[in-house]
């Protein structure tokens, strides 16, 4: 099977490079998210994530915090701009910043080159050195301490604060457990039920089979929003109410058409002779199903499992409707969307982190399942 890739080395190179380009294109957005999750909101809005690892020139404002000294009829302020302001001191560390330009008006924050003494008029002068030391003199007592704007090379800054906020939010651990409690049964139960139904529809003969298949295909497109309110009403009427049991039932039913559709399509393609010879050997349908069909259908089962797992894991709508809205039963998506984002709507750093935290588990699941997927695929290709 030495076809497209490998037969000719030039083509091989082309394939390698093409795939590399595609992978890079696919990764760029996610990398952006990943980098942003380590930056705080202010940084995200002043420089692009692609600039995050580099020092950038940014403008700052500092106010003299010290008292003026009166000397030779002049009022003099002296000090270090980096030290005057706690936030600046934190950004630049102890005196490590390097000022390139400065100014005394917000409209022209970088009017003068560092190290140059400037006459501001009205008997005022200002000198700012690149290490942050400054000297402001005025002929009359200033009404208030002078404000100095400056441009400085800002070191890249990364923070784990976003992760701390997201992971240590009240009851986040509980939300994580709740998500697992919702997701695992909501993935396994529909697979079991659908596998039996798919087998019946694929390999058992009975009147009305074609109609049922058509019905399942038709139900694929039903927007689940239609079912939310009537079903919740039903749950309340029969005493399930808003509970984990309710959400399992809902997820099971909503995932069912796709599960039956995918599994049946796969099972139909399994080699007929294996099944028939097994039946000739006296195996019952139940045995054929458990001993032959299930193992052979592993790739399809795994594919659907991944699909359903991701769907339930990332689901927000169903969880909001079928689970009570108290803290004890919030799942992660609800927790993030309603608690974290509601109160910090514009905090892109938190949003990025939340998105990243919530994909971690699905990714782990995928990478573990992938091995089985491939193994299942090889086993399946015996026909």
């Amino acid at each position, binding site marked *: 099977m030495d076809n497209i890739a490998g037969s000719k080395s030039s083509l091989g190179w082309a394939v390698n490079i093409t795939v590399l380009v595609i992978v890079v294109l696919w990764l760029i957005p996610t990398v952006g998210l990943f980098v942003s999750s380590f930056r705080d909101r202010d940084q995200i809005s002043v420089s692009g994530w692609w600039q995050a690892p580099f020092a950038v020139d940014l403008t700052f404002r500092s106010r003299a915090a010290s008292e003026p000294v009166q000397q030779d009829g002049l009022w003099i302020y002296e000090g270090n701009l980096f030290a005057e302001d706690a936030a600046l001191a934190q950004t630049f560390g102890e005196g490590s910043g390097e000022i390139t330009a400065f100014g005394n008006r917000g409209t022209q924050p970088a009017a003068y080159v560092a190290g140059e003494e400037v006459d501001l008029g009205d008997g005022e002068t200002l000198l700012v050195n690149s290490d942050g030391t400054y000297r402001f003199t005025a002929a009359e007592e200033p009404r208030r301490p002078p404000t100095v704007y400056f441009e400085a090379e800002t070191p890249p800054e990364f923070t784990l604060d976003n992760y701390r906020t997201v992971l240590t939010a009240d009851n986040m651990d509980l939300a994580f457990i709740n998500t697992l409690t919702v997701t695992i049964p909501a993935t396994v139960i529909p697979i079991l039920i659908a596998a039996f139904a798919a087998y019946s529809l694929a390999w058992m003969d009975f009147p009305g089979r074609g109609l049922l298949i058509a019905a399942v295909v038709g139900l694929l497109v039903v927007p689940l929003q239609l079912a939310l309110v009537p079903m919740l009403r039903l749950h309340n009427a029969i005493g399930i109410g808003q509970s984990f049991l309710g959400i399992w039932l809902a997820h099971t039913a909503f995932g069912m058409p*796709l599960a039956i559709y995918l599994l049946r399509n796969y099972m139909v393609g399994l080699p007929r002779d294996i099944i028939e010879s097994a039946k000739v050997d006296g195996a019952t349908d139940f045995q054929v199903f458990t001993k032959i069909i299930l193992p052979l259908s592993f790739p399809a089962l795994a594919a659907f499992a991944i699909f359903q797992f991701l769907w339930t894991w990332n689901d927000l709508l169903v969880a909001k409707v079928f689970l009570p809205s108290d803290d004890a039963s919030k799942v992660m998506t609800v927790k993030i969307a309603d608690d974290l984002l509601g109160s910090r709507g514009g905090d892109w750093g938190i949003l990025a982190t939340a998105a990243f935290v919530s994909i971690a588990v699905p990714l782990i699941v995928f990478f573990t399942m992938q091995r089985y997927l491939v193994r299942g695929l*090889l086993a399946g290709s015996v026909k």
Partner: protein
Amino acid sequence: MNPIIAGLVTIVVGVGGCVGYFYLSNLLLDKVIFPARGENISRNINRANAVRPWLFMFPAIFALGLYLVYPVIGSFWRSLYNRAGNEFIGFGNYQALFTSGDFQVAFFNNLLWVLVVPAASTFLGLVIAQLTDRLSWGNIAKSLIFMPMAISFVGASLIWKFVYANDPDIGLINAIRDFFGLGVIDPMLVPFWNNFFLMVILIWIQTGFAMVILSAALRGIPEETVEAAIIDGANPFQIFFRIKVPQIMGTIVVVWTTITILVLKVFDIVYTMTGGEFDTEILPSFMMDYMFRDDGIATAVAFVIMIVVLPVMIWNIVQARRELR
């Protein structure tokens, strides 16, 4: 009770209950109701075999009937009533929809989505599946391309904000334009094309799905057919399009259908990126606008969605019928 233990117990009970149902009911059928012994042995076996499919399908049919068929019928009925739900107006809601400009925009956009997204995702997925097939680092490449599948739609929309934002300090596209000295544009405001920018997000997510399923199908192709073609002197492109693609057509249809269905349900992307403004509305987000306000209109939109996808459904049903014969 400790939530972890509660969770574990319920998982065991739920899954065990399902397995138990199938095993025990099957046992009951074979051993007690229609035992394969005694004088009626052959009649019993036949009867058991007639009942068994329904036994296997009962939980699925029950769930589908209750959670999907019943609301669909109820909703269809509801869509024939007015806003308050107390006056029968026949197809009045549908009529109102098709005369409304907003709906026409949403309808047209939705057709675009249904045509473009499944086609693009399936095509890209197929090409990537083939290209990575023999690559030594193919699995790594596939995993990376699959990754967006794991991201929630809201998360995905956020990611693309970092690409599309109109501020060159946040959005990558504008940063690149800025770098080349081009003016800042807002991708969400470019008429007509803004729909495609939104579609890119879903294609980005769904290509991974198509790729995984199709690469499984490609591996299932018998080697002999490919070898025979090579001996006949076919070039790689001919092998791919003439030999391989026809053999996995069934899987392609499944993937295509699955993505089409997803397209018709996803409102999150449009909802979070533009809120349906700037002529980017699609039917699912249009429906959400009416949901709980005017259920008559909302349910009517749901049925329009189902009608839009009818061709794909019929295609599938025909396909399934053909297999039956």
